[in-house]
């Protein structure tokens, strides 16, 4: 703080601190504290708020644990989000490696720019594109039917559709961290490994992936978090049988009218995401300060 005031003086220094305080206290901390408060209170009619039954309890969270359908959807969301992260990683890794190690500067610039194009239009339109592509009478079915790969149209909406749409939506969040971390790998290390007779598979497993660990962890963490917290992809590309945890939360708020239970569910989602983030980063031995592009 002393440094801040020394550099900018009393007026500006205080202004900066006030702005940051308003952000962190008012826009980050207070909302989350209030959400926790909501999550731990029962849903009561206005007349009973502050009354004898308005006490803190874990009832809302226990409700989730005991309600079989919701619990199943929660766990499905967890593993499906992990699957999204894995699929996105597999899709992105070869391209990231090529971009970082083999592409000429101009090739890399063009490809990176091409990659960003789908991401300049919004997530809803990206998902809409898949909605059109995967429609029952849509282009994908028509294409596969004409090739004779399938005999009758497939209902893509559902888990498969959600997975495809999400992997598509989060490519950039996976690709850039991996690309950045592989780029810092000295080419001669790969050449040395090859010179020593290592197979391509072994080079990646023993040299490239350990080096790019921080980028891979970052990409996976972001993709998981975005997938678990996504609403639009499951809403558009899902089917009644493929509900996502965020849809349940939405329903508590805007259809069930039980904000307290909704807040409790949101809290569970937040804790899950933070736990996954921290555990993954710890396992990969990446500090939080490296998680930034």
């Amino acid at each position: 703080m002393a440094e801040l005031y020394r550099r900018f003086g009393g007026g500006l220094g205080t202004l900066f601190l006030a702005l940051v305080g308003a952000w962190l206290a008012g826009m980050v901390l207070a909302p989350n504290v209030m959400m926790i408060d909501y999550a731990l209170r029962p849903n009561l009619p206005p007349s009973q708020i502050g009354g004898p039954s308005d006490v803190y309890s874990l009832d809302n969270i226990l409700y989730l644990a005991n309600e079989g359908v919701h619990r199943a959807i929660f766990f499905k969301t967890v593993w499906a989000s992990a699957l999204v992260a894995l699929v996105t990683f597999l899709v992105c890794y070869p391209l990231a490696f090529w971009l970082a190690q083999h592409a000429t500067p101009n090739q890399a610039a063009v490809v990176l720019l091409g990659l960003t194009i789908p991401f300049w239009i919004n997530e809803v339109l990206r998902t809409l594109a898949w909605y059109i592509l995967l429609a029952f009478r849509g282009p994908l079915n028509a294409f596969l039917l004409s090739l004779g790969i399938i005999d009758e149209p497939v209902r893509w909406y559902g888990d498969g559709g959600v997975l495809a749409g999400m992997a598509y939506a989060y490519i950039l969040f996976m690709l850039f961290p991996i690309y950045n971390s592989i780029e810092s790998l000295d080419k001669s290390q790969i050449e040395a490994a090859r010179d020593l007779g290592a197979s391509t598979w072994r080079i990646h497993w023993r040299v490239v992936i350990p080096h790019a660990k921080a980028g891979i962890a970052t990409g996976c963490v972001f993709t998981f978090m975005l997938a678990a917290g996504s609403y639009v992809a499951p809403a558009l590309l899902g089917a009644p049988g493929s509900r996502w945890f965020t849809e349940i939360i939405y329903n508590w708020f805007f259809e069930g009218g039980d904000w307290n239970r909704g807040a409790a569910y949101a809290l569970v989602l937040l804790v899950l995401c933070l736990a996954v983030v921290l555990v993954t980063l710890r396992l990969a031995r990446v500090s939080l300060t490296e998680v930034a592009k």
Partner: protein
Amino acid sequence: MSAADRIARALFGFYMAAFFVYLFAPLAIMGIATFNTSRFPTVTPWQGTTLKWFQELSTDTGMWQSLWTSVVVAFCVVVVALPIGTAAALVLTSLHSRARSFLYAVMVSPLLTPGVVIGIATLVLWRQLGIGGGVMLIVIAQASFIICYVMLMVTARLQRFDPTQEEAALGLGASKFMVFRRVLLPFLKPALIAAGFLAVLQSIENYNTTLFVRGFDTPLTVYIATKVRTGLTPAVNALALIMIVITIAGAVAYEFARRRQAARLGAG
């Protein structure tokens, strides 16, 4: 070249082709569907070529209204996020080691929070204060994490700042405010422009957070998502196509500018 190498090359070529088909085919189909007369946007079967969906888009007042809402929100988000993000970067860089790592972790935490949670937390806090969803809450909720991006971009730029410039200015008699205005801010300008640009994009594209705090206001993403469920027509595709064309034009222009600059630097 060995047979194994040739196979590896062919596999990689196939992968690259598949990747870019995966990347662009959905967008291409969405764009092409705009010109099909079919009421549901598709390219199969092709029922006839038309431009009527552009006309329908131009008369869709709800769409224009929601676009206007999004623009207003994006503008406000920039106004909120740029000063706070810059202040955050300056506070962060004036701290040392432990305190700095801690504050950094706190400051990036909104990026690691699911968008729906940000929306919900903002909604419950402000309901407690008697304020319901709407443009104001959308701005607050979006800004709370867009500030992180601004902070990161400004911090990155600050790391290349030579602090002796500040001392030089002070030594010449400048007040601390003048040092900030005449030396530091001009240095940060490129990062602020880029951050402002990113903030607009992030704001307009946001759906997950916005959905919970929108109240009775309908920004563009919410409007489109609602259309998809309640009567999707290729008019939405027309809108998407316009956005894609603008994006590609911008990307091409950017790439040309970059190459010209690279050539100039290379020559000079």
